């Protein structure tokens, strides 16, 4: 609670006020300038579309959520494993890093056709695209956490006879956890980008596919309804990741890592 005496916590209320404000301004702008729905549908119009097409929207939202989540989980497992591997030795780091940077620079939309050739149209390319786009930030963050162990800490432990494995388990991996959990927030939003890209290019379900179909039928409110659903799913998953981060690595938010 804030110190305000009125009993209204403005900071907690702020996200709702701002979001509400955005929709009100939007609604007013559409009405005042009399914009046609195919240019910019009003929020009420979009809400109507969500209501009208709810069964389809619900089914496709679940499909997108499913491909995103599975791709994201693969990215977490793969990213964590590769991050530890890269952070483990300078040799592996030096060898793999340029490869990963190059791979990350490829627009993932260009990879989807290849995935379609391999796996056909449908769920698997969407999962894999989500995985490919989401795993890079996880790798980089985990590797950074491992690579920035204080040299003094390493000296203290090595002088006591610690093996590389000891140092990794006792210091490196716990130390990289805040970086890891921090990267999950970025990774989950990127995973949505990945799955929707794949759904737009090559799928027969999912929000991306639904929006493309709606666009071809000039059903603009439904296209916007898809966008709104994506935003809602993104916010919810982001909030879940932020909560997980707080739960797992609360210590990192109360301390500076390099405090002397």
């Amino acid at each position: 609670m804030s110190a305000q005496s009125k009993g209204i916590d403005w900071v907690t209320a702020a996200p709702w006020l701002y979001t509400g404000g955005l929709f009100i301004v939007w609604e007013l702008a559409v009405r005042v300038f009399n914009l046609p729905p195919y240019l910019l549908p009003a929020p009420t119009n979009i809400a109507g579309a969500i209501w009208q097409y709810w069964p389809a929207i619900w089914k496709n939202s679940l499909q997108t959520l499913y491909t995103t989540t599975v791709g994201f989980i693969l990215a977490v497992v793969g990213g964590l494993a590769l991050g530890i591997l890269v952070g483990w030795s300078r040799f592996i780091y030096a060898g793999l890093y340029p490869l990963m940077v190059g791979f990350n620079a490829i627009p993932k939309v260009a990879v989807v056709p290849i995935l379609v050739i391999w796996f056909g149209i449908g769920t698997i390319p969407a999962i894999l695209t989500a995985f490919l786009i989401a795993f890079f930030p996880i790798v980089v963050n985990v590797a950074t956490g491992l690579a920035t162990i204080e040299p003094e800490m390493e000296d203290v432990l090595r002088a006591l006879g610690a093996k590389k494995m000891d140092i990794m388990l006792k210091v490196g991996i716990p130390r990289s956890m805040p970086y890891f959990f921090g990267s999950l927030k970025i990774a989950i939003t990127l995973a949505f980008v990945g799955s929707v890209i794949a759904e737009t290019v090559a799928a027969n379900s999912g929000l991306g596919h639904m929006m493309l179909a709606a666009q071809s039928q000039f059903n603009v409110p439904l296209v916007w309804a898809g966008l709104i659903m994506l935003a809602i799913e993104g916010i919810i998953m982001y909030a879940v990741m932020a909560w997980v981060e707080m739960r797992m690595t609360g210590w990192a938010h109360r301390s500076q890592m390099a405090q002397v």
Partner: protein
Amino acid sequence: MSEPLVTIQDVDMRYGGPQGLLAVEGLSLEVATGEFAAVVGPSGCGKSTLMKLVTGLYIPQEGAVTVAGARVTKPVNIVGMAFQNPTMLPWRTTLDNILLPLEVVDRHRHRLRRHKAEYVEKAERLLETVGLKGFGQKYPWQLSGGMQQRANLCRALIHEPDLLMLDEPFGALDSFTREELWCVIRDLHAAQGVTIVLVTHDLREAVFLADRIFVMSARPGRIIKNQTVPFTRPRDLEILYQSDFNDIVHELRGDIADARKAA
């Protein structure tokens, strides 16, 4: 004087291959068991190299380092180390930070789980000695810099090392805290009979704490002076203001200034 615990004999240490930087050259010194030695010198003189040579983190190209009668060829786990940066792990409580070396040192790690209570009791006793009684369950980031450094000393001592190597442990502290910690170290040395090598920039600290002070030359470092400190123990902070104390500090200061000029 008893037999030496640490012997460094004509050691050359060069970094980065045969053409690399020569950190120390012809370095020789001896530290007796139970002695408190300090190493001072101009910056970049290889004091930290000395630390790593004694602990076995570096193996010299020339000469020999002997600790407790054995030639050093790998890390020596009868040594405890503490640096200026306390490097407490923020996700562990202070107590668990102090117990960390026991999870690593071979002769303790296998009995740690079964004898946990015994080790915890030992850690609590150490905490009490350094004036941190009851702070074991706090996280390091809940402690001040001086308190973290006290905990750092406990971590360096938990596995009962024969030799304690301190690399400017009080460099980042304010002068009052530093004096407090001087007394903590002085009392630890007196109570535990541990041999201590203190690397420092602070000449008053060296003279107050040490029995013997080695002055190193500028790089490549070697010992240019071996000064014994005559004051009887236990020493009181009052001696910092005595004229014979200041004479020694003044003389050492002159030696280091000369060493810097020679560089």
